């Protein structure tokens, strides 16, 4: 029995971004985990109050490098409801496509990172290779791989041509067949060994700690904001992916099935894509308070926006999914896991620290 303290992070190969867990360990068993954030706070919420609401779209986009689509969607939807306008149907479909493409590349990225964390490098490289094709598809639509700048207040900035839609369909076929290629990884002995029963979060704990997104859905909570039918989701057919494993393997399985679901949703969007305008112009004053929530790849993304009738916004509050998932992660870590499992458990909630601290 040797007690020691390990400072896991803020600089650690498994975390692309700085977060620290101070672990009290006995031999290799973690008995206490203390999270510490605050290494990359950028004061974006304050900047929202200082800039023009139109410029804020680009600010929202830069909160998170992996999920710019949900951030801008949540922001513009909030401002739209303050203005009392609504985006045209075609714009809603394009937004939905961008959000789902975003989810696909984010989930593939996560799957690769998990492979890296447990020392499965070939799987890591393979998944990231497939992700490139998704990013290429995004670039063909929006002109950029990372910051899409597709959303505008009242619609979207770029239309999609029929040619782009066909191209997207082809990419979806490619991604689907590639994922089927590596699907057997879910049955791999070593992967099961490293994820099953690791990082248990029961349904009760998930509710108590306010878990969101795949972390909650892997604990048997059917919580998916897309079912509320914002943007085009009301017209599309899908069921939230819920599993009852309550462990890291469950979170893996949820994301894996959501990948297929997203591919299906994009195909539905392509088929049902309405024609017409893509932008509703408006100069209405922004007055009152609005809450805008969208389902980002990591879970519920929460925007509170308050306007005071002037040209600038009074307050924008952003609550990112990772912020809600840190406390559940501490619960998972404090159950006496191995030091080797810390990286798997922290990764299983898909941390995105820069957007957590804004």
């Amino acid at each position: 029995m040797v007690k020691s303290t390990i400072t896991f992070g803020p600089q650690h190969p498994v975390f692309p971004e700085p977060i620290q867990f101070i672990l009290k360990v006995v031999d290799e068993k973690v008995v206490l985990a203390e999270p510490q954030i605050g290494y990359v706070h950028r004061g974006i919420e304050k900047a929202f109050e200082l800039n023009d609401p139109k410029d804020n779209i680009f600010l929202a986009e830069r909160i998170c490098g992996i999920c710019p689509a949900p951030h801008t969607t949540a922001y513009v939807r909030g401002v739209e409801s303050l203005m009392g306008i609504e985006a045209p149907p075609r714009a809603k479909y394009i937004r939905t496509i961008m959000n789902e493409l975003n989810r696909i590349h984010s989930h593939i990225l996560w799957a690769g990172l998990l492979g890296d964390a447990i020392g499965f490098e070939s799987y890591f490289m393979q998944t990231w290779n497939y992700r490139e094709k998704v990013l290429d598809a995004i670039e063909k639509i929006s002109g950029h791989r990372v910051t899409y700048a597709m959303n505008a207040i009242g619609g979207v900035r770029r239309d999609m041509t029929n040619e782009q839609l066909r191209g997207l369909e082809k990419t979806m076929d490619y991604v689907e067949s590639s994922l089927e290629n590596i699907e057997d990884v879910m049955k791999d002995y070593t992967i099961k060994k490293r994820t099953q029963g690791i990082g248990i979060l029961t349904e009760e704990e998930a509710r108590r700690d306010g878990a969101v997104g795949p972390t909650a859905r892997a604990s048997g909570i059917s919580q998916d904001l897309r079912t509320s039918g914002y943007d085009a989701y009301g017209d599309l057919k899908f069921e939230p992916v819920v599993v009852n494993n309550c462990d890291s393997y469950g979170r893996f399985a949820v994301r894996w099935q959501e990948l297929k679901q997203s591919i299906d949703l994009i195909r539905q969007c392509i088929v049902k894509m309405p024609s017409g305008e893509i932008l509703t112009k408006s100069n209405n004053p922004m007055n009152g308070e609005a809450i805008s929530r969208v389902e980002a790849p990591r879970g519920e993304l929460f925007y509170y926006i308050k306007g005071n009738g002037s040209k600038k916004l009074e307050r924008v509050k952003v609550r990112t999914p990772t912020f809600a998932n840190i406390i559940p992660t501490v619960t998972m870590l404090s159950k006496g896991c191995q030091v080797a499992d810390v990286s798997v458990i922290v990764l299983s909630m898909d941390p995105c620290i820069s957007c957590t601290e804004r």
Partner: protein
Amino acid sequence: MQNEIQVNSATLIGETLKMLEAKMRFATATCLDIGDHFEIIYHFDNGNEMKHLRLSFKDGEEVPSIRALYACARFIESEIVDLFGVKISGVSAGLLLGSDSPVAPMRKSAPAKSEVN
């Protein structure tokens, strides 16, 4: 906003307990600087609809913490204390900001300049 209940420091815990009993998830809390006073809006969600508790208080007044009821309030309250410099009982600053950071940067009185325009 819809489904909003006005609370004060004395009734906050009682109302939060009702939310807990109704199995609502504590989504987050938003702090607002309204010139002469502060407001904290507690957002709860049960999957279908949101409910909000709006707590108004004067600057310098210490408001109760709901950490005992909702463990996930820990970071949310710390962040409010850090960014707005308000007092929440039992919550210390230092989550997002360090000792050499600006104090309470989210207050309207805090100096800031726009970089974009």
